[in-house]
């Protein structure tokens, strides 16, 4: 296999500072982000020959040919596109595949872009995603009205039963990332919270309470990738894609494995192997946090702690600045930004950390960053390791 490690770089990154965008179409927000990322790189729209997006879900503005709609809207005719949608981590998968496209000459400058406006989106778009469509595999589950959060609740409850994980440990995830968000002027929620605050918040789907859940924002972001060679001549310090892995497993709740293992257990080792780094080399991590249980399972599947040990790992302060794995330095999805698929933000914040531009907590002299996301309800996973 061709060695992709370090062959490409993220050369531009931009996160919209917006968290509310009333009556702004998500494509308009994507355009802001694309131009922002290109400007960050010192590139222009004319330089772009590749476009990656997954904009066909609710509140994302597009339909089944979303990447075509988006190309038309922004006014380009890209010769490389990817609209593979595996949920929130789609953009990490698209970065890995863009690296392969760039390294093999299929594309030269690829934009990966995302925006959604769930706070105002007026259409109850007919959706055929597996979480709402009672046909095929979904006919045995959707009639029972599972909610997205209740599925995370199934994971969290079983984690408690298997490993003695406590609501306090879950709450500590929310508290940790809120502390980071307090330093980020763009974060949606910046008021300090305590474990008791989390435990006193209303139950949504047991055992998950409101403060175990991410914010709901309008927002977006984009990154620009190109070859290692071209990256050298651009405006900012290149951030190299050193490692990448992705995997998909299930959508139906009945297929949740007894040991709660998620596809991160497949994506992570591939990313580490490609990058040739170990867990101890990771200076800073952005780990998708839709709910407090979300990054906990990722920590276990990625191998930062043992099976069932994530509760103690978080409670011991390992995710804070100065801890073993400073994580979600911008406040993450729990406190900063979560329009629906926040995988793009794990890439953007990784880039900012490696450049010393973190808007929230900045890890000093970070050289190796991990961006990890999942999709759906631990249905998919993608991991990237980035270096400077």
């Amino acid at each position, binding site marked *: 296999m061709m060695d992709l490690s370090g062959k490409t770089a993220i050369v531009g990154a931009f996160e919209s500072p917006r968290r509310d965008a009333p009556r702004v179409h998500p494509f308009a927000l994507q355009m802001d982000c694309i131009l922002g990322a290109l400007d960050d790189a010192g590139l222009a729209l004319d330089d772009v020959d590749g476009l990656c997006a997954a904009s066909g879900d609710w509140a994302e503005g597009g339909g089944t040919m979303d990447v075509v709609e988006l190309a038309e809207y922004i006014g380009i005719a890209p010769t490389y596109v990817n609209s593979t949608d595996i949920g929130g981590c789609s953009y990490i998968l698209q970065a890995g595949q863009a690296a392969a496209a760039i390294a093999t000459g299929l594309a030269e400058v690829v934009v990966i872009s995302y925006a959604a406006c769930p706070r105002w989106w007026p259409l109850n778009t007919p959706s055929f995603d597996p979480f709402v469509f*009672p*046909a*095929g*595999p979904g*006919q*045995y*589950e*959707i*009639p*029972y*009205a*599972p*909610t997205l*959060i*209740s*599925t*995370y*609740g*199934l*994971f*969290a*409850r*079983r984690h408690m*039963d298997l490993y003695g994980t406590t609501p306090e440990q879950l709450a500590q995830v929310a508290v940790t990332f809120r502390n980071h968000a307090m330093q980020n002027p763009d974060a949606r929620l910046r008021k300090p919270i305590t474990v008791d605050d989390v435990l006193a918040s*209303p*139950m*949504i*789907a*047991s*055992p*998950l309470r409101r403060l175990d859940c991410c914010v709901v924002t309008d927002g977006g972001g984009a990154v620009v990738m190109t070859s290692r060679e071209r990256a050298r001549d651009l405006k900012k310090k290149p951030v190299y894609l050193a490692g990448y892995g992705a995997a998909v497993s299930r959508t*139906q*709740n*009945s*297929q*949740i494995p*007894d040991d709660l293992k998620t596809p991160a257990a497949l994506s992570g080792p591939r990313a580490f192997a490609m990058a040739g780094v170990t867990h101890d080399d990771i200076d800073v991590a952005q780990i998708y946090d839709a709910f407090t249980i979300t990054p906990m399972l990722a920590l276990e599947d990625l191998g930062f702690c043992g099976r069932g040990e994530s509760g103690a790992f978080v409670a011991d302060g390992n995710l804070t600045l100065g801890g073993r794995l400073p994580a979600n330095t911008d406040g993450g999805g729990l406190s900063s930004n979560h329009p629906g698929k926040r995988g793009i933000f794990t890439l953007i914040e990784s880039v900012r950390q490696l450049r010393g531009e973190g808007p929230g907590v900045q890890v000093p002299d970070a050289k190796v960053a991990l961006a990890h996301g999942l999709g759906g309800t631990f249905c998919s996973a993608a991991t990237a390791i980035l270096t400077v």
Partner: protein
Amino acid sequence: MTTMTTPPVQDETSAPFWEAARQGRFLIQRCPETGRYQWYPRAHSVHAPHARPEWVEASGRGELLTYSVVHRGNQPGDPYVCALIRLDEGVTVFSRVEGVAEADLRAGLPLAVAFHTLDDATSLPVFRPRTA
């Protein structure tokens, strides 16, 4: 039963399951080559992909594996219990648990299938505490 308003879209594969459910029987599939059970129903065996699974009536007995009580869902209504149930046959199904106070829910709770009539074509299996 609250918030159970989306009837299943039956198809060629699933029709026997729903017809049996209408008669109060819970079917699962078994692989003719390996003898192993599978859930959810498919047109092929996940244990021997070229084999067509056969329908067998399940015991309808199982135990609670994990659950989440939906206090705030997509529609108004009383809280309800989404759950994974491990059937005695070894497969895991997703369903609702009824007739148990939230405080009494626990992994390992013995359960048995019951049926709710949604409409003329559909009865939906749910699970209730098992006494014996």
